């Protein structure tokens, strides 16, 4: 019986996707901490959008932290989906910081941008938390 199950497991593992799934990146508390910080910041900063001076500094802070998250993730093996998501998250955050450096930013735009960062970080945090231990 043991041999049959082992053969079955091995034959299933011959599929590439299953090998990728078996060898997938495990839970990393630093990665989880980084995405949690980004989510918490965005949640707080969206309530401060009526203050343009503070919000500009907030936008730079989130852009810096999302860039850190990209750099942290990008050399972890078998992590393509998270690397791709982290780059998109950074692009969302950087877009807000760039607008502040170019012109006056409307509070509505600021709130929507921080909300996008928050909801995306929330989704990423959920998935990261369920990585295999």
């Amino acid at each position, binding site marked *: 019986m043991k041999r049959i199950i082992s053969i079955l*497991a091995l034959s299933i593992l011959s599929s590439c996707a299953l090998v990728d799934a078996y060898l997938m990146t495990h839970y990393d508390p630093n990665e989880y901490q980084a995405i949690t910080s980004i989510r918490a910041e965005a949640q707080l900063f969206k309530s401060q959008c009526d203050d343009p001076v503070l919000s500009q500094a907030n936008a730079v802070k989130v852009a810096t932290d999302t860039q850190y998250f990209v750099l942290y993730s990008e050399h972890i093996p078998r992590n393509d*989906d998270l690397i791709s998501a982290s780059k*998109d998250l950074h692009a969302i955050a950087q877009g807000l910081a760039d607008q502040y450096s170019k012109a006056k930013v409307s509070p509505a735009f600021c709130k929507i941008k921080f909300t996008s960062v928050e909801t995306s970080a929330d989704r990423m945090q959920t998935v990261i938390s369920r990585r*295999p231990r």
Partner: protein
Amino acid sequence: MSVEQHQQALLESYNGSVDPTVQESAHTANQYTEMFKSGEINKDEYIEMMQDIVRVNNINRSMDNMQVMEHMNTAINGLINLASLV
């Protein structure tokens, strides 16, 4: 094509698709277009927000892939644990 014609096309995407992602994206794009038309956001902000719809969809797609992999990992490890117990 005018802004209204583009909005009509968005509305048709919204009504014509059963995919919740397409529906949500079309709804969000329509909402941003209304904000732009009312002057609540400027042109640069509008363009950036429309690009964010694509970015958020990309993030969700990547997270969907990771969730599938996590479920498969659990199933494979379950099989391996089962094999080691027999």
